[in-house]
């Protein structure tokens, strides 16, 4: 039978837990919208990696990707969805719960 901490770890959203995607999600949760260049600047990921991570996040509905022409320059605009905000909040809560239960066990 699985103990509580194992169950809680299993609840961790792997889609967000990956460092590159976590960085993207935290950044997007703080702003309304950013273009691809801005995400490159902030996440310091390579173009290929960023593109792949964005596609994965879009596939699960955590972010919205819109392609637009702004002053004749193609721009990919990315924003977090409500589902993304909820998932990130839940991820933070789960992580905090695991860390606090780990702390309780070590102090006993």
């Amino acid at each position, binding site marked *: 039978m699985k103990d509580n901490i194992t169950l809680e770890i299993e609840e961790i959203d792997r889609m967000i837990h990956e460092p590159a995607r976590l960085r993207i999600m*935290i*950044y997007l949760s*703080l*702003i*309304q*919208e*950013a*273009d*691809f*260049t*801005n*995400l*490159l*600047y*902030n996440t310091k990921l390579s173009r290929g990696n960023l593109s792949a991570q964005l596609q994965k996040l879009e596939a699960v509905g955590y972010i919205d990707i819109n392609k637009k022409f*702004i002053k004749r*320059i*193609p*721009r*990919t*605009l990315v924003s977090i969805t409500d589902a993304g905000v909820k998932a990130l909040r839940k991820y*933070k809560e789960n*992580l*905090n719960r695991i*860390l*606090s239960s*780990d*702390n309780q066990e070590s102090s006993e």
Partner: protein
Amino acid sequence: MDKLSFKNTEKSILWDIRYGDGLLWLYKGIAFVALFLALKVSLLMWLALILLFPIQHLIRKRWVIPRRGIVKQRYYSNRPKYTTMIIIVGYLYLMLITLHLFSTRISETMVKAMIFSLYLLLFVNWLVISYLEWDKKSLYPILDRIVILFLLIALWYIKFEFSAFLLLICIYGIFNIIAGTWQFISFIKNNPVQAHEG
């Protein structure tokens, strides 16, 4: 273990979005030098601040956006575009009209006091906001407060003489121009221009 906090990361990100390019400090410095010129030379010098908006737009388009891209901040998302510019230009015109209509009744000293009070309000607002948003890494807020303290001590020693007080305003403006330019140059140096998408 303490509760895991994303607050520091979030503060760093927001600080970089707002102050990373140093332009706000540069504009703040220019605004203080303009205040010095307006109070010392001519009130019309203050109107030169209107030029700051197209220049700001040009700098962003030419040097900032190619490096940092476009980001729409959450706090300002509901605010119509150019609201700040409209408010400041509106304030300027209101002052001009007031001056024109009541030039016999309203003295230049009163207008100067109006401008000064606006600055004081913006300045206090700035100090509070920049402290709340500080990422605890940037040296600017510390230097800013040291300079303010130094200027206040200097003001005490010069016994609040108006012309010397104006000079201190100018020094504060120059400090901000230097800090902003320094930050802007580091931003340009450390962040190469990104190729266009597609």
